[in-house]
């Protein structure tokens, strides 16, 4: 599975990457020890898909970022609602609060900062 993952890193196009990730996750799904890895792999492909659609909506540059960096960039570009939706399931509140704070300060959006 690690091999597949590193292959996924090497390929450039998103759909191919998704395929590889799915294969890796399937490979591990059978055994019970690897639940964490499987979950992480699934999250990865979800994130990639999300980033693809963000690229269309907000302009390029999302693909390849980490989840937190994606959220940060999204808030900076004014997509606070969407970021909240994206983060709701996975990111803990405290961390999301920090991301929001940093992004809003970087954006100089003081009214929103006050609302926190």
């Amino acid at each position, binding site marked *: 599975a690690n091999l597949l993952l590193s292959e996924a890193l090497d390929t450039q196009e998103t759909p191919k990457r998704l395929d590889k990730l799915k294969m890796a996750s399937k490979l591990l799904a059978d055994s019970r020890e690897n639940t964490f890895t499987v979950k992480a792999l699934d999250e990865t492909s979800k994130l990639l898909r999300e980033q693809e659609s963000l690229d269309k909506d907000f302009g390029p540059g999302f693909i390849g970022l980490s989840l937190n960096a994606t959220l940060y960039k999204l808030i900076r570009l004014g997509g606070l609602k969407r970021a909240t939706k994206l983060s709701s399931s996975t990111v*803990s509140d*405290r961390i999301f609060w920090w991301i929001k704070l940093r992004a809003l300060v970087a954006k100089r959006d003081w009214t929103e900062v006050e609302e926190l």
Partner: protein
Amino acid sequence: MVPQAQINTTEISEKARRDLLRLLETVRGKKNLVIQKALAGTLGLFVKFSTLQEYGVDRVFFLENGNIDSSQKNVVFLVRSNKSRDVQAVADQINQLRQNSQVQHEFTTIWAPRRTLISDQILEEAGVLGDVTVYEYQLLFVPLSEDVLSLELDETFEDIYLTKDPTSIFLAAKALMKFQQKCGLFPRILGKGDNAKRLTNLLIRMRSEITAEDAGESSSFLDLTPSQSIDSLIIIDREVDFPTVLLQQLTYEGLLDEFFGISSNTVEVDSATIGPPTGPPQASSSTAAASTTRSLSHKIALDGADPLYSALRDANCAVVGPILNKVARRLQSTYESRHKAAQSTAELRDFVAKLPGYQAEHSSLKQHTNLAEDVIRRTRAEFFTRALEVQQNIAAGADPTSQHDNIEELLARDVPLELALRLLCIYSTFSNGLRTRDYDNFRRMILHTYGQEHLLTLHNLEKMGLLVARTGGGLVGAAAGPVGSTTNYTVVRKNLHLIVDEVNESEPDDIAYVFSGYAPLSVRLVQCVLQKQYLASLSATGGAGGTPAGAGLGWRPFEDTVKLVRGATVDETQTGEEKAVRARQMLNGSVGEAGKTVVVFFLGGVCRAELAALRFVADKLKGQGRGKKLLICTTNVISGDAVVGAAVEHRTF
């Protein structure tokens, strides 16, 4: 019979230089030299470019740049052979050069430290082996300063613990074997850690091989008698003590290494931090601003012979300021004394004669003041203090769950990946792994903050045993896992006094000063062998105090504690043939304890703070008047960032 030689570091660098130059001489005429970047710094330690020029080197290229031109007929490659990717690079460049130029080139490759089967094979596959003259250059130990020898294998850590490649162990054994051939056998080998065990076995095996070879010829058992000048060899496997490297080093040299990276005794700094090299200090604010825009990096040689630096390097960063201040005062007063005292011409001449010395001191003082300022500025940064707080609490054995919030916040604020990983690894190594729930939590956080590709990074760390989930589900700090596979820190911390609450940073009285309170386990182990009384006095309960110190006792009376530390324990006594021993004794008379050297070998790297601590131990031994000397050998010098850096996945989605 010649008397057995003492280990002399200058001799070793002298020999390395001679060997290299002899090899270069075998290639006739002018030549272009192509070297690996990593090797260049190492060579710079003992050979100057001008010397190379005298031996017909026209231009020097770096292998990595791939920009050799065809200006000379002879091309010499000087490359480490243990990585197939480097060998491949050599082959590629030879082919490229052959295609592009009309001149019939003559190629020579010099493999350091040895020619391997694989390197030959790669060259053969590339179709160049027939056209290349191949030499071996036995570059093993390189002295970094008068008491430190290093193999300068940059990737040992990754090799041994991640890819489990034993090459470095083999090379280490080779290097130590050379030692033995010159100075006689190590009378006793002590070691800790599985790889230390492997190294010892290799050494013993190599010894019997040499004996077997010699048996046919005229017997030169001379080489195989126990050494008179060396007391013992202590091998410490890095695996035994991961957390020490991961902790933030707090000595001056350690901090320089952490912030700027020291390689081969030179540190590369942005010239803005150093300030303009010449010019009055008043103008420095404006010129410094100018140099920031250029942002050139500046190389500074850190020379152990410089009295100022040797005073500074092992000091805790808290006292660097005062030391610099004192030296500055002294210099100023000498400068001023010129006006008052220097009246007669004789005195004046005397002063002028000393002037270059003063000037050198002045400029080195200036450099280090600037460096220290920058270092101290960085240590005041919030991230640094926060991370340090977490580290020290964990090291001191406080309940690590209390640090979760701190770690989480640091992660949320996007601290550098290496720092975050170091914190987690320290946490994991000190408490024998994380609870499964915390482990998954932190892993998810890392992935979210730094990117999903770090799934591979985490996997690597797990493989190295740096960041693992706790098995067995024991309580925090409870002895989990079988004895010998993990280190039981709660007990060891108490028995070996790893935590010293009251540290005197300006006049250190214990090695714990290098981490402001935590005494590195690795060095404590060395102390177990060398300073038994001292350790016993530290612990009122442990150990049978009053036993005369001396390596003759091996690990006693600390076997029980040492057993709790991860890895195998090694204790081997090497004796030579009885006849030879007796002959030598008759010739040399009995040599006392005085002047014997203890060799400490760190397999897998050593960090600068540990070096400082070991120097401190050596000073203490000297102070006791037994005249034992300490020689520190290592595969390379590393820092915590390098340790976790070995695992980091660099590609991104």
